[in-house]
């Protein structure tokens, strides 16, 4: 595969990395401003890791659209100084909804390559200061504004067109889409940090107000504020801080065309497939070894497609897989035990690192009412745009 580093080279030269601290704000409509949310998450992660802010050597921040949502740019030093990091390299990364997955990938590289020993990866978004029409416009700019955007494509419209094609090619049904929303709401109701802790019925989901047909409001993730952060170190140092660290078995980041009409097909995401393949190869694991997963359900169809692209269901069977209950909390592979973007919320820049925090919580056995029974190995999949960026991680309990 073009552009793919040989996994042997990575494993030979790179140090194994561990997540030693996690921190999250609640996701939802929050009073705090963008900077205070980010600092809250970072402070929580540092405290969880028992690391002082002054010991952090590099800071990677995922944020999609601070300049558009709240009129603030130059976010990494703006937040890093407030968090007490001082004069360290502080960098904001923007890859649409995969911004903090990407921040984590780059943070991991810097530790794995032996450049730094203590690094923070975080993500933040403050979205609710704008009304829904303006939010829709800001999010649409993660697509190709010279083509699909100009024609009137919103993000729900792009995923609606993916859903329609998936229905056409594989017979996926509205009920199958709705079953993803019902499951994720049931899980999110058990998550104290979730945006919408509300159980919904299949009938409610099917009768939702249409956003872009066939998707209704119940197929769409939420507009949320929130932040998440992790502290990473080489595995060899992890035990000095905590016995409850998580090993980063794999991280892979891939790219694809931004415009939906430039992709050869739209019922599979090549970026998700290749990130998954690279991650499985790096970890020496396969889909059957994964015990829980946080998948990027920005829309219900996105969870279905990702479950196929990552090998949890056969191609075209993602709908029946969800409808049959295979991905519920007590299913064969619990997906989005946190409630997912659908119920937990989707502060876009915070989502990738937020998923990693949610998996680490499960690996530690700290997920309370939504704790899954098998929790040794978890996977996260963070998607940018309509599949133009993907970051997959595989994490293992210490």
């Amino acid at each position, binding site marked *: 595969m073009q552009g793919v580093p040989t996994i042997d080279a990575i494993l030979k030269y790179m140090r194994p990395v561990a997540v030693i601290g996690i921190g999250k704000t609640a996701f939802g409509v929050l009073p705090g401003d963008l900077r205070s949310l980010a600092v809250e998450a970072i402070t929580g992660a540092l405290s969880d890791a028992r690391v002082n802010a002054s010991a952090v050597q590099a800071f990677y921040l995922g944020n999609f659209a601070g300049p558009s949502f709240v009129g603030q740019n130059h976010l990494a030093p703006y937040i890093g100084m407030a968090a007490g990091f001082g004069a360290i390299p502080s960098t904001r990364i923007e890859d649409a909804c995969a911004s903090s997955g990407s921040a984590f990938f780059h943070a991991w590289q810097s530790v794995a390559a032996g450049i730094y020993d203590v690094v923070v990866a975080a993500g933040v978004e403050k979205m609710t200061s704008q009304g829904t029409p*303006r939010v829709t416009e800001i999010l649409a700019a993660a697509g190709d504004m010279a083509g699909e955007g100009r*024609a*009137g494509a919103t993000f*729900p*419209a792009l995923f609606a067109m993916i859903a*329609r094609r998936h229905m056409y090619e594989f017979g996926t049904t509205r009920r199958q889409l709705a079953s993803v929303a019902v499951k994720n709401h049931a899980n999110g109701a058990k998550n104290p940090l979730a945006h919408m802790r509300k159980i919904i019925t299949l009938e409610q989901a099917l009768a939702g107000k249409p*956003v872009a047909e*066939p998707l209704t409001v119940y197929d769409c993730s939420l507009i949320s504020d929130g932040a998440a952060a992790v502290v990473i170190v080489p595995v060899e140092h992890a035990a000095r801080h905590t016995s409850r660290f998580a090993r980063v078995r794999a991280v892979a980041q891939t790219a694809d065309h931004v415009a939906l009409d430039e992709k050869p097909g739209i019922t599979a995401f090549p970026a998700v497939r290749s990130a998954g393949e690279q991650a499985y190869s790096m970890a020496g694991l396969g889909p059957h070894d994964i015990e829980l997963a946080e998948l990027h359900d920005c829309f219900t169809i996105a969870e279905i497609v990702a479950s196929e692209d990552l090998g949890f269901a056969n191609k075209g069977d993602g709908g029946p897989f969800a409808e049959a209950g295979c991905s519920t909390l007590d299913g064969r592979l619990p997906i989005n035990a946190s409630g997912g973007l659908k119920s937990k919320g989707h502060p876009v820049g915070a989502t990738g690192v937020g998923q990693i925090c949610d998996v680490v919580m499960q690996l530690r056995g700290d997920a309370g009412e939504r704790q899954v029974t098998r929790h040794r190995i978890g996977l996260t999949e963070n998607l940018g745009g309509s599949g133009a960026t993907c970051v997959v991680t595989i994490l293992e309990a210490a």
Partner: protein
Amino acid sequence: MADLLDGVVYTETIVHSATPQFAADAPYQLAIIEVDSGRRLTARISGERADIGDRVVFVEERDGVAYYCKR
């Protein structure tokens, strides 16, 4: 020219929640058209609703956007 741009609906949706720029148009049908050269483009469909697989003809280009209608 118009004949060259005719094609088949590859996928489509009816957009109900639009950005402020297109709010007055909503609901509107948005589609990816596979034109006869094999290329795909994102376009609007005016008039009768078209389904995946339907043949559509190029009507006009307005503000850089192609408009099609069901044949």
